[in-house]
Every structure is written in C-alpha cells, then in structure tokens.
C-alpha cells in the first residue's frame, strides 16, 4: 500500500527532517517499496510469541550513583557550534 504525500510529510516532521518536495516524492516511493517488502512479516503466525527486545538476558543493570570528574564542562562544550556562560546556546525557544 503506497504512502500518501501527507503521511511522508507527517513522518518527516516527527523525525525533524526538512526534506525538499523532490526528495519527499522519492522518499514516498522508496519507503512504499520497502514497506511492501516488509509486509511479508504479516504471513508469520506470531500468536502467543513474546517479543524479543534484546538478547543479553541481563535485567536492570545498576551502578552506584556517584559523582565522577570524567568529563569537564569545558570538554563537554568543546564541540558545540555555539555556547555562552558554560552552556549550549540555541535561538530563543519562546517569543519575547
């Protein structure tokens, strides 16, 4: 079942991806083809089968909640495209 342009636009917004109209159309046709292929999962009888999210058999791994000095504020900010007063800086989120 092919995706509609509105569906693709909606997913792009959810994913915070700005796509130009040409790419939206290419994405629509490629995603539709991939979803058609994936549809073969519907033929598998999964009744009563539990889902597998991970295969480690580990549950709720904990560690002591202790303060360490592994990463300084300066090092953590070193890659930021913009910073001020020891913080990451972005454009205003709310109107003034």
């Amino acid at each position, binding site marked *: 079942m092919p995706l509609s342009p509105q569906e693709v636009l909606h997913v792009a917004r959810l994913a915070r991806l700005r796509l130009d109209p040409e790419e939206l159309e290419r994405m629509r046709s490629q995603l539709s083809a991939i979803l058609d292929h994936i549809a073969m999962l519907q033929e598998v009888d999964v009744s009563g089968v539990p889902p597998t*999210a991970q295969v480690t058999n580990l549950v709720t791994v904990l560690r002591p909640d202790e303060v360490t000095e592994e*990463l300084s504020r300066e090092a953590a900010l070193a890659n930021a495209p913009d910073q001020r007063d020891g913080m990451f800086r*972005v454009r205003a989120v709310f109107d003034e």
Partner: protein
Amino acid sequence: MTDLHTLTVAAARVALAAGTLSSYELTEALLARIQAVEPRVRAFITLTGEQALAEARAADATRRPDSGPLHGIPLAIKDVICTNGVRTTCGSAILETFVPPYDATVVSRLKAAGAISLGKLNCDEFAMGSSTETSAFHITRNPWDLERVPGGSSGGSAAAVAALMAPASLGTDTGGSIRQPAALCGVSGLKPTYGRVSRFGLVAYGSSLDQIGPFARTVEDLALLMQVIAGHDPRDGTSAPVPVADYCAALSGEVRGLRIGVPGEYFVEGMEPGVEQATREAIAVLRAQGAEVVELSLPHTRYALPAYYIIAPAEASANLARFDGVRYGPREPGESMWDEIELTRGRRFGPEVRRRIMLGTYALSAGYYDAYYKRAQQVRTLIKRDFDAAFAHVDVIAAPTSPTVAFKVGEKLDNPIAMYLSDVCTLPINLAGVPSLVVPCGFSQGLPVGLQLIGRPFDEATLLRVGDAYQRLTDWHTRYPAL
C-alpha cells in the same frame, strides 16, 4: 627484513619481542604502503601518521619483557568508534568536525595493550549500508578490483587490511557490517556475541544489534585482538559479565568430532554459483578433517531481512535524534531553533540515513507500532529459537556470507532493497545475538568468497578454533591483491 607491511600481528609480535624489528620500522613501512596504495583504495577518513610514528618511537623506548600483547603494533579503527582528540565522523557531514573528548573502551584497551593507531577508517554513514558508498567523504575501493565496492559498512576496515595498509583493524557489525566486507575483501573478520565486547564510545546505530569486532588476515590475529578487547565493561550496561576464554590457547587445529550444521535456507535463490561452490568446498575440507557435517533447517531465515528493516531503523531513529547541531557538529543557520535543527538534520544526514530514520519513525509512530515493531520483535524471537534449536544438535553452523562477490560501484546505490539483500545471510545472526566468523575460502570470478561460521552465544573460542584449523589446511588467506 623486506615487505614489513605484509607481517601479521603474530609475526610482528615475535619479531618485535626478539628485537629484530622496531615498532618505528614497522610503522614506517605501513605508512609507506599507505602512501603507495591509499590514493587508489581510499580506506581512511583520517590518517594519524605522525602521531603513530611518535607512539612507535615511545613504544620502542618503553619495551620490556612484560610489555602488553600488542606493544608497538599499528592498527586502524573504524570511524564510528570514539578516539580521544582524534576526529570521529561516522562517515557523516553532521559530525564532520566532531573531536571526541574520550576514548571508547575498545580503544583504551588497545592502547593499554600497547597498540598504535594509524588512523580512522571509512564506512557507510553511521554504519548504514553494505558498500561504503554512503560515506559523506569518499568511496572506498575493493583492493581486488578498484571498480568494485569493498562491502560495508566497515568497508575501510576490510580494505585497509586486504591492501596491507594495516595488519588488523576494528569494525562494527549491526547486520553484517564486519562479515560481508571481510568476505568481499578476502580477509578474516569476527562479529562477537552481542555483549561480548564493550560498546562504550561506539556511536550507536541499532543498539540491540551493534557489536564491535576485529578484522585481520589470519584467525590467529583475530584471537590476539579479541583477547584484548573482549570482556565486561561497567560503562556498558549491555556488556555481559561472562568470563573471557583463552582464545589463543583454543587454537588447537583440531576439528575431529565437531558437529557442523549446514542450513539449506542460506543457499538463497539467485546465489552466485561460484560462491555456493567455494562455500561447499570449504565445508568439505572440514569434513575431510574429521568434522561431522549435517544438513539442518533455520526455517525463519527469510523473515530476518524484513524484521531487521523494522528493528534497526526504529532503533536508529531514536539513537540519531541526538544529532541536532546543538551539542556537536556544524549547525545550519535558520529562522528559529526548530528551523535550525530541521535544516541541520535534513541537509547533513545523507539519503540512506534519512531513509532509515524515516522508516524507523514511521514504524514506531502511533497506529503502526503493533503491526510493525511489535511483530518484528515477535519474529525475532522465532529466529532466535531457530538458532537455539540448531545448537542443541550442532556445535557450529557453516554458511555463505554474501550471496555474491563484490559488486560494481554504483550498481545498487539507488536500489535500497537490492542493497539490503546483500546482507540476507548475515542479518539473522545479529537478530539472534550469536557470534559469527568469516574466513576467506576461495574465489568466484576472480574475487574473494568468505565462509561464515556461526557459533553458540559466547563460544567465540570454538569459531576461532575451526577458522584457524581451516587456515592451517588452506592458503586462501595468504593471497594478496595485486595493487
């Protein structure tokens, strides 16, 4: 000594310990080799030659009888693994300026063992791809035929080892990204059990599937590297507190009495006849040596690809949400904060990464979760059960790695499904979380073919023993491309 760049890790270790070779000479020889062939192969994104020479000089000065197992040995690292102070791009324009402030655990372990880094290796963007063509930087070429891809996503890691630019390297494998390029470049590669090697400092793609592992030209060298990188890490909550075997001691050369299963489903329709022939001949070599070979069935194999292309993109869509141009990487200027984030992500992620983020976001979005994500996870259970049932009867599963040899550059780039099918024999292994080793086992159309050996969880030792035994009986792993 001539042709130092052809030395294996094991041979270099012996010569370094005996004092007949210095780390400086070895590093210089590898850098000379890189200078000669890298312009054609292009396996590296970042070369750190001067730093490597300085580290080699220091290694020579500090060598002692009890030095680490890789003391003074140069290696190279896939560019999705963080290296303190050395740019780590993930093959992406969104991280083209990122310099990590810490080392991944595998990198600190290699350093503690004395290893030297030659640089960072090219890969598909965020390890999403099967050809290394989706790298934002450049295409890496297959050293056996420069018109062809090295496979992917760890194409640089495989090509550097095949082209004798590094004796060994690290890669990562989420759906075949170590094994498929190892097969296509004619080198050995191991995807360890999920949880066997720490992923702290690995930039995440599909968190329930990703695993770091080594490439080398011999299984013995893989064992040496695994001994250093394997083991529990308190910084990685998915790292398993399971004891690490003595991998080198496991290499007995013996396969007598071992039960090897051959799954019919892996000889897929459309498989290249030369690939099937080389794979079956390799299995016959092990049988002639006393292994018992039985046919078996892994009935849900065909559903691994669709299940993977729900689960991996879903995890990727969440993992890659962090790339927003706020904390690292360049930022595209825009009208507002959200405008800048959407432009940065839309322009700086490449087409394949955007496609997988979209696919994963769709699969997780309201109304589709049960039909896609939950069902894929249920199918994953069935795939895992296939392996559990098989390993009740056999010790190792032997299968092809890739349905074809290396394909031409550009051949599959605009056809996502054709590209995805390249991993049809490797994806199920990641879904089940089991370990898998690839060793060169012949040629088809003059290009390398790899035998895939799949093992029980945490039984890398048996895989390495079988792979090493095979390399004692054959010489495919000693063939080098003419570059």
